[in-house]
């Protein structure tokens, strides 16, 4: 047991994933009911996740304030997106250092980005988060070479970091639930970018507690006012080396996306005449451990297969109108556009005030590292 993690099952799991790929897949889900037009917050619930061949119940509520300047004490979806990246990076680092036999003293990851603002002070439509980056402060005795190596590998294998680097499209649908069955309507969307010179700073701080448990705080500064939220807890399910103390970083990402889209959707003009009472937005996404552990090179290491489904109980005749409304909301949203874009992310590792590793990460660069890891693994197996 090191750093609160018991990793003895890792090697066995690698073999199990090879024998039965289904065991490697974890499907996360979050549901966010459509908030009423006057409500300041969106409230998401985590749903049971499928982890390989069994289910894991998840019982967490995540709240988001939908306007940057509202007085709610909850983080905004854009802050939570940074939490999702920072927490995922931090968890991957804890796993990486633990597998190298490094005992950690302290670990903290801060993610930062610029959020473009429209003339009304709200996030600019369809604009990606700018200047995304994270920095990790570490206290441990490992040599600098290990720190550089782990930092490089985390950029390759942290699923949410990879989702930011790579093109991660959200497939969207509307499901109309009628008395005699359900009908699914596909949603077409593309970011409708609103150019804007204004922006604000968004930050998330994730501080490692023990094992896979961390606490996070967030900050956003608009109009000279700095709003801070937290601390809140992020953790893994106990079946995933955690203690079930909070939602994990993938669930936080899904709740951020569904909260932002639900917040925009409720104001869509097309919804004015639609019966949306009880409507809920389901967000889902997948981790495949074969990619995260590089068991199969072709499998992505990123959080992928992102899906959004708006479920509404109404007459199927409303389906196309609802699909158009969801498409319009998605097109105006920041987070789906951010995930869709191929970003460059600045990363660094700092120890004792000194930068041990750093630079810009791109998809091409991390893919090259993964190729090299694959080559070394194959050589080790043949040798």
């Amino acid at each position: 047991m090191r750093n609160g993690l018991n990793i003895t099952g890792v090697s066995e799991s690698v073999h199990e994933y090879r024998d039965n790929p289904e065991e490697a897949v974890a499907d996360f889900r979050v549901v966010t009911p459509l908030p009423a037009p006057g409500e300041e917050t969106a409230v998401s619930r985590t749903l049971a996740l499928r982890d390989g061949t069994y289910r894991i119940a998840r019982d967490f509520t995540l709240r988001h304030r939908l306007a940057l300047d509202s007085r709610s004490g909850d983080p905004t979806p854009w802050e939570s997106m940074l939490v999702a990246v920072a927490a995922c990076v931090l968890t991957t680092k804890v796993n990486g250092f633990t597998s190298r036999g490094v005992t950690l003293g302290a670990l903290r990851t801060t993610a930062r980005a610029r959020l473009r603002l429209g003339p009304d002070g709200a996030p600019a439509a369809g604009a990606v988060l700018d200047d995304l980056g994270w920095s990790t402060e570490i206290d441990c005795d490992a040599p600098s070479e290990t720190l550089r190596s782990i930092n490089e590998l985390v950029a390759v294998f942290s699923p949410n970091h990879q989702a930011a680097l790579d093109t991660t499209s959200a497939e969207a649908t509307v499901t109309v639930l009628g008395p005699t069955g359900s009908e699914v309507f596909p949603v077409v969307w593309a970011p409708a970018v609103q150019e804007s010179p204004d922006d604000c700073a968004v930050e998330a701080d994730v501080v490692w507690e023990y094992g896979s448990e961390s606490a996070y705080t967030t900050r956003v500064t608009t109009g000279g006012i700095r709003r801070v939220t937290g601390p809140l807890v992020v953790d893994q399910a106990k079946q995933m080396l955690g203690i079930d103390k909070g939602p994990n970083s993938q669930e936080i990402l899904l709740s951020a996306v569904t909260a932002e889209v639900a917040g925009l959707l409720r104001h869509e003009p097309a919804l004015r005449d639609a019966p949306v009472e009880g409507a809920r937005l389901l967000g889902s996404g997948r981790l495949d451990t074969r990619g995260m552990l590089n068991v199969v090179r072709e499998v992505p290491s990123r959080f992928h297969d992102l899906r959004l489904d708006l479920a509404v109980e109404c007459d199927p005749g409303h389906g196309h109108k609802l699909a158009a409304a969801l498409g319009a909301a998605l097109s105006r949203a920041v987070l789906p556009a951010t995930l869709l874009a191929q970003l460059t992310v600045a990363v660094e590792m700092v120890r004792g005030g000194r930068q041990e590793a750093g630079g810009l990460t791109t998809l091409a660069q991390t893919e090259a590292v993964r190729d090299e890891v694959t080559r070394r693994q194959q050589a080790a197996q043949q040798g």
Partner: protein
Amino acid sequence: MARSQGNAPEPGSGKEWTDSLSRGRVPGPRLDQQRVVDGRGLGTRSVHAGTYEDPGTGAVGTPVFQTTTFRFTEDTYAAFDQGHIRDVPIYGRYGSPNQWTVQEKLASLENTESAMVFSSGMAAITTTLLALTNHGGHIVSSRDVYGGTYNLLREDMHQLGRTVTFTDPTDIDAVRAAVRDETQVLFFESLTNPLLKAVPLVELGKLARERHLLLVIDNTFLTPIHLRPLEHGAHLVIHSATKYLNGHSDVTAGAAAGPRKYVDRIWAQMLKLGGSLDAGMCFLLERGLKTLALRMRQHHTNATAVAAMLAEHPVVHRVHHPSRPDYPWTWLHEVCPGGWGGMVSFELKGGDEAALKLLDRLRLPVVATSLGGVESLVSLPFNTSHSFLTERQRVEVGIAPGLVRFSAGIEDTEDLLEDLDQALAGL
């Protein structure tokens, strides 16, 4: 003391990102000194599997390691460092050679990787269900389960953040309908108490796989001699080892068996809940298990003979036993061709009053709770195991007035029949 067998992964500074790729999970925990007789007959495995062969004395039986703690070695420190503390003798609650001996015997009998013993059957059930579910999770079970289990599921699980739905355990459609999005575990007894209802094991296994659920089967009544649920789709098997496994009414213990990927989790939960079994009880349980196959044959012979005799008796209204032609759950015969243990239930025409009189008149069977011992035991569900149910609830699960639960021991069959006959004659 040597460490247990196996090649646990060993992370370290020279390792690659994905850790050592050699297989880490091994059967056990198992020491090099333990006998492995996998693939032999169940009688042979009952006798020999897991026995610790003491290299110093050549003792035929496993010595009692009456110690709570073990001297640290390099392996101990490595186990702490790397997390495989289940496989190294460290501390009594974590595991001991006596636990590993009896666990290996159980794992071998169940044809699986690993087993655990607990301080009671309820400790096994509580620990297993908490280990396999999460806050917000849901369990599908049945009101037909043992009273202690029912009380745990009804009174405590919701306080621990788990909800439970009780269904008819013999109706696969009812079980399927009870499954929710957050359902994690199906928990049933292979043969229920006291009516010997058989759950549709194969179909439950299919449902569990189809819906990504874990099927946990309490197999106390049948034991691995008659049924190995893991071979029919269950993920884990539970026992009250107090009953047939030990078989001498002198040990309170429980057990769980299955693949290490699940049993390791149960072990980690046990460390916190604390229901481990001490060395002395492990020794007795191991000794009892050595005769399991032999005993189960006689339990089955006696129960079947008792059921046949009761079915012909004029004061008996109905007999609940898999050997009877009116037994409704015939799928049991397909998965258990070799026998059904020692339990028989029957209803007397004179109701509970006649049942109480019968208990007064019996000379050989002891009127007592529990079951599965070498001595025959008899009790009435209405004032013992199912007294927690209202009369309406008892009727709902089929506990009719005058129901008697008979646990056939291993006495001579003729003696049991004669005693029952004289007792029934006076009613």
